[in-house]
């Protein structure tokens, strides 16, 4: 039965985000709440884009229209979410008493928000497809491509990761007023979403999206303070720990660059 497909595709798409959630988010209540709240903001963005999509009846056949505006809405709500966090920073500090990294290292919050956006958007794009996989059948009888499921899962995974990276880049851009980065995030999101309009030409779309993912990942990694040297030292391991510890108190973020 194709419950196998269900688990396979589910794990492909959500395995990394589950790992991130389980290892870095679930242990901290504030992060968990932030994750849920950012997911809620993504939902709001989706709701507004759906309202627009439903309202403009004439353009309902052109998905591109909905996609473009939905991307804009998502980035808008990412911005609103950022503003909200800024506003609530004071409160957040109190809340995070004893665990200050979340306030001190902005990247953590950015990462959490990005993951929140990513997980919920991944869920919304894949969860019904996954549910439909559980039956005995697989796709293809009506001329759909045979690797529809795998392609969906892989693209969803890319988008989850992209959202994480975009979250980091976006927040960082706002913090540092680096508007080029901001533009990169929005354009990258737009490009990634619009390229999927070409599906099911997977040979074009999937590589493009993954190139964008890796690019964004590298950027996010650098922005968060990583470099090839840090990677080396990380592999070398312990020796510098104490020193590092003293340097960056409580800074044990885990921005994911897969």
């Amino acid at each position, binding site marked *: 039965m*194709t419950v*196998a*497909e269900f*688990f*396979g*595709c*589910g*794990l*492909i798409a959500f*395995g*990394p985000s*589950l*790992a991130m959630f*389980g*290892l*870095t988010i679930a242990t901290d209540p504030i992060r968990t709440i932030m994750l849920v709240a950012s997911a809620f903001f993504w939902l709001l963005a989706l709701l507004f884009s759906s309202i627009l999509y439903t309202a403009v009846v004439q353009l309902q056949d052109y998905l591109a229209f909905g996609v473009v505006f939905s991307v804009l809405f998502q980035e808008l709500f990412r911005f609103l979410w950022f503003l909200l966090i800024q506003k609530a920073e004071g409160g957040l500090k109190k809340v995070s008493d004893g665990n200050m990294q979340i306030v*001190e*290292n*902005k*990247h953590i919050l950015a990462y959490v928000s990005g993951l929140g956006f990513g997980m919920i958007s991944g869920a919304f794009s894949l969860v*019904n*497809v996954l549910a*439909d*996989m559980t*039956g*005995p*059948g*697989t*796709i*293809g*009888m*009506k001329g*759909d491509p*045979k690797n529809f*499921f*795998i392609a969906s899962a892989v693209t969803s*995974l890319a988008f989850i990761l992209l959202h994480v990276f975009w979250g980091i880049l976006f927040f960082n851009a*706002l*913090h*540092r007023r680096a508007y080029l980065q901001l533009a990169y995030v929005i354009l990258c999101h737009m490009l990634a979403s619009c390229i999927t309009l070409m599906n099911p030409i997977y040979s074009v779309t999937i590589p493009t999206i993954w190139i964008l993912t890796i690019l964004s990942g590298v950027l996010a990694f650098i922005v*968060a*303070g*990583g470099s090839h040297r*840090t990677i080396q*030292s*990380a592999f070398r*391991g312990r020796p510098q*720990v104490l020193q*590092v*510890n003293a*340097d*960056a108190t409580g*800074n*044990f*973020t*885990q*921005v*994911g*660059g*897969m």
Partner: protein
Amino acid sequence: MASKVTGRQATLLRVLVLSGTFFLAAGERVKNKIYDEIQGDMACFKRFNGTHEIGCTSKFFGNTGVLHVIEEKADFDWVYEHGPHQPYVLAFTPLFLTEAVLERATDSGKVSGVVVVVPEDFDPETQLLDGFSGETECPDAYLGLYNASSNPDYAGYCRKKPWNPNGTSMLYTSWEFPIFLITNQTSVNNIQNCFEKFNKPVNGMPRDWPLCSLELKSNMYGTTNSEVCMRRASIGPLSTDNFCDPLYDYNIWGTLKPMNMSEEIPEKSVIIVAARMDAATMFDNISPGANSAVSGIITLMSAAAAIFKHKEEIINVSNKNILFILFQGETWGYIGSSRVVWDMEQGQFPYKVKDDVKDQIAQINLTHIDYFIELEQVGQPEDINKLYIHTDPISNANPELKNETDNLLNILDEASNLVNETKFVRVRKDVPLPPSSIQSFLKHVNISGVVITDHEGEFKNPYYESFLDNYRNVKYEADNETSDADLYHKHINNVASVLATAIYKLATNTHKKITADPELTNELLFCYMKNMTCNLVQEYGGEMAKHLEPKPAKLYVSVESGERYRSYVTMYLMAGLLGDEVERNQSDCKIESIYNMNHFYYFSHLHNGTCVQTTVRMTEAMSPAFLIDDYDWKSGEYSTWTESGWKLTKVMIFLRPSVLEEVAVVCGGVVSLVLSVIVVHFMNSRADLLFGLSTPPAAC
């Protein structure tokens, strides 16, 4: 829609669909890209009697199998000997629907289901030369008059000369896999196309995955036999699903003149004219019974309508009454007739005496019966003008009774001469009766009766109790209610005329040629054979008409909570034919009590609203076996047939991937998870090293 559960389910689904359309805008789920639903309402289902179970069931979650369409006999061998992708679901036309094929499929162990597809161009007459009947060779022999214990002399007659030589007993066999009948042309094409695109072996070599597969769902709740099944139903106090229900419907009947309890009914004063109302097939939702039931029903209704026009004359000169009755469930061991007899013996036909009801209907018992005329299959005579009259050799051994029977036969002859269209031929006196309702009466009382059929020996109907017994079988050709070109309705109308004339003579002892109305006959035939949403049903059917589909009537007897619209519609039609219009408006047009001798029906669509006073009513047709305490289920005295409950029947077609592919996907997923756990853990635990050297971003 036979089962209780199914009936409820259907309304439920409708509710869900309705609400679903409000709550959820219909979306394009991926599911629709994977699965196609195929007509699945005609499933073979389980029934039980006191000792056995028959029919088919799927596994709980459905049976799946790779589709293989059988085009010729050799394809079977390919599946059984070469086919590597078992289990298979076989699809074939009724041409291959034989016991031998099904048995071989069972024995091979490679078959998980069968769909019988009926393509549009399938012509039973040219292709199915041997006929096809799911019934046994001797229908209802076990519960009839001539069983081995009571009448050994005649018990063996049918075995030597079967009434139904085409009988395969397929209906009475318990199959190990689900069997579905598919008549919808889109579904048929779907199956054919999918098979050719993905599954059809190339030069005898099997194709590779993914393969087109079918899932057949028709899980039945009941098992073993009626006794076990009924007992189980009484155990679970919280149970909401029923394991099985007794077959149940209503006998529909009316008398020429009302019988008031205050007036005593003279002995031997009631002439019973009977026909059977139900037919059966292996499959749910299809039971056209064109010859086995409809021919008799329509003849009876036409004759009744014709006689009713002379009601006053008859009442004035005679104390005789005429009772027209349609028996339900006769296919399943004479349920309707045996119930009437049982009620009459108990002195409770139609109802027990009520104390405080005025104008109460009188109780009829067996001694009131004068003559008994039964119409069995009358639609397919070899010679269009020749019908056969059967009499019972046992009861007619009694000379007194024989005289009466001879009198009846003579009157029928005279009537046929008078009408001069249809001749009646008497069957040899030592031939027992064919399967017929009168056997139930003769088991308990000696009455003189005849059974009118279109066959002398074996049935002329090659598709007795099968889904092929439809209007094509009897060559009913009318395309609409008013078509005059058709010959079949003329034949039926002639029989009705002869019958009416004979009954008039029996009742009044005077000859008068009565002619049934051919237009009415045609309209009735059209309704029952082709389209239950016809004008007549719209006029008389009232609310019930709304539930009927534009299809031939489904004549299966069903269960207590099953679909029964056709029974109601038939009752209303009878009421209209056997009723007097009265000047009452809708609010007054009702009865005080069902025990009244007269009933009132209001037909709002007939002439802008008509109120009719009539004696037509329904009485329960459920086997006495379920009413008698401590009934011995194995005694064979009454019908013990029950029907299994089920939730839904459904067929889906889809592609199935290869196991290898599935394994690969799962491995991919696991790799993705493990890899990401390692990476995330690494980054998390070394985060200080990975990111720590950077200066924290300036806070805003």
